[in-house]
């Protein structure tokens, strides 16, 4: 079936469409608010459609730690992201997060104009251990609780980017907090590594913590792996410099499906993104 063969290509096109729609959406919301439409409000920290509130679980966790209090509407607001993360993993990162979108553009630039160095670094891909990954999140939350500082808000690039877009459009300009995000971009540009999304981001890690084992995952079947290319196309395709064929792919993998697309391109089906 022709349709079946290009499934991951279509999936990736939908993903890119979703990323661009998100950016346009973040620009549209404050514009709509200015002309008087108030049923849609918010940024990627928390967004609301009419009476339906959706909040970032990492920020909700931070609020609980800072207030030692369970505010029920806020907990309910975190349910939708938690449910999506439970079934599909960190698809927020790969389909929505504007930080990842911009990082992917930067990587595309490196791949095209600095190919040699990019390949050299991409070959050194490595998976992240589950202890390291959640250890970093736990440390961040611990510091948040100990110092009574909203560290997760500072270190939430999707939140900072979206709220800066809103502030800029509402006429209060951009602030220094955008420097946090810019520093990440600059560091990653020179390091050729996506450490932020792969290791450090509290927003992604919190979503990853809810990803349940049996649900949407990149599945590797060694028996089907026949393209014989070195380095393997799936590894070269991974935006986070992970190795799709090895264990420990999760929780760092955010289910973008680019490795499955690369595998599909070679005409094989060794890597599938399935439930």
């Amino acid at each position, binding site marked *: 079936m022709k349709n079946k063969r290009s499934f991951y290509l279509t999936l990736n096109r939908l993903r890119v469409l979703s990323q661009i729609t998100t950016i346009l959406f973040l620009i549209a*919301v*404050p514009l709509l*608010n200015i002309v*008087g439409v*108030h049923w849609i*409000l*918010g*940024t990627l*920290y*928390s*967004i*609301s459609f009419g009476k339906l*509130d959706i*909040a*970032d679980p990492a*920020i*909700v966790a*931070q*609020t609980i730690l*800072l*207030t030692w209090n369970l*505010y029920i*509407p*806020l907990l309910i*607001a975190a349910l939708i992201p938690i449910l999506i993360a439970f079934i599909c993993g960190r698809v927020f990162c790969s389909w929505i997060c504007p930080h990842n979108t911009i990082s992917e553009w930067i990587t595309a630039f490196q791949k095209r104009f600095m190919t040699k160095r990019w390949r050299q670094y991409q070959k050194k891909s490595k998976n992240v251990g589950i202890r390291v990954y959640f250890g970093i999140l736990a440390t961040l939350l611990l510091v948040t609780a*100990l*110092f*009574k*500082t*909203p560290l997760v*808000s500072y270190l939430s690039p999707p*939140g900072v980017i979206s*709220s800066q877009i*809103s*502030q800029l459009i*509402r*006429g*209060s*300009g*951009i*602030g*220094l*907090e955008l*420097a*946090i995000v810019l520093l990440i971009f600059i560091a990653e540009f020179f390091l050729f590594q996506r450490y932020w999304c792969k290791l450090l981001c509290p927003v992604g890690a919190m979503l990853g913590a809810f990803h349940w084992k049996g649900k949407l995952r990149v599945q590797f079947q060694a028996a089907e792996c026949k393209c014989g290319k070195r380095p393997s196309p799936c590894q070269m395709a991974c935006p986070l410099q992970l190795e799709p064929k090895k264990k420990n792919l999760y929780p760092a993998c955010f289910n973008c499906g680019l490795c499955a697309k690369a595998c599909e391109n070679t005409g094989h089906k060794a890597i599938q993104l399935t439930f």
Partner: protein
Amino acid sequence: MIQSLTSIFSKITKSKTYLRPPGAVPEDEFISRCIKCSKCAQVCSYNSIKILHLNAGKDFGTPVIEAKDIPCYLCMECPRICPSGALDNALVDKEKVRMGLAVIDESKCLPFLGVICRSCYDECPIHRVAIVLEDELLPRIDAETCTGCGICESVCPAEEIAITIKPLSQLADKRK
């Protein structure tokens, strides 16, 4: 040791007192509760609510009102949309808002200097209650009913603004 570290840290990042949107819970709790989603600023039709940038200090992302520029017109849209309870969702009556308290500096206020002026008295949204005229001339603030919206501050025609809003958090500090 942790406590001393925390105190040093909070000294470094000591925050100023800001006028918060209507329905805000006490300052310390407000800082912890606010999730920086900007919804209150977005829903504000008058653009009264601004979001602090990092340039202003560690409380960035939280909403403030600069009454001097654009005061709060008490439309009561923002408290009900706050997702985290940093603004009291149940607050509907504008009379019940307590954001701060207007304070008159009699050395600058025109009626006290012998010039007839009723700007603040005329514009006060809690009309003839929160600001009353003593001897039909001198404005006096009724601390019980003043909402702290800041409309008086924004309309004061004196060269140096004679009526200013003291944010609730600042008042609480003084009482201690």
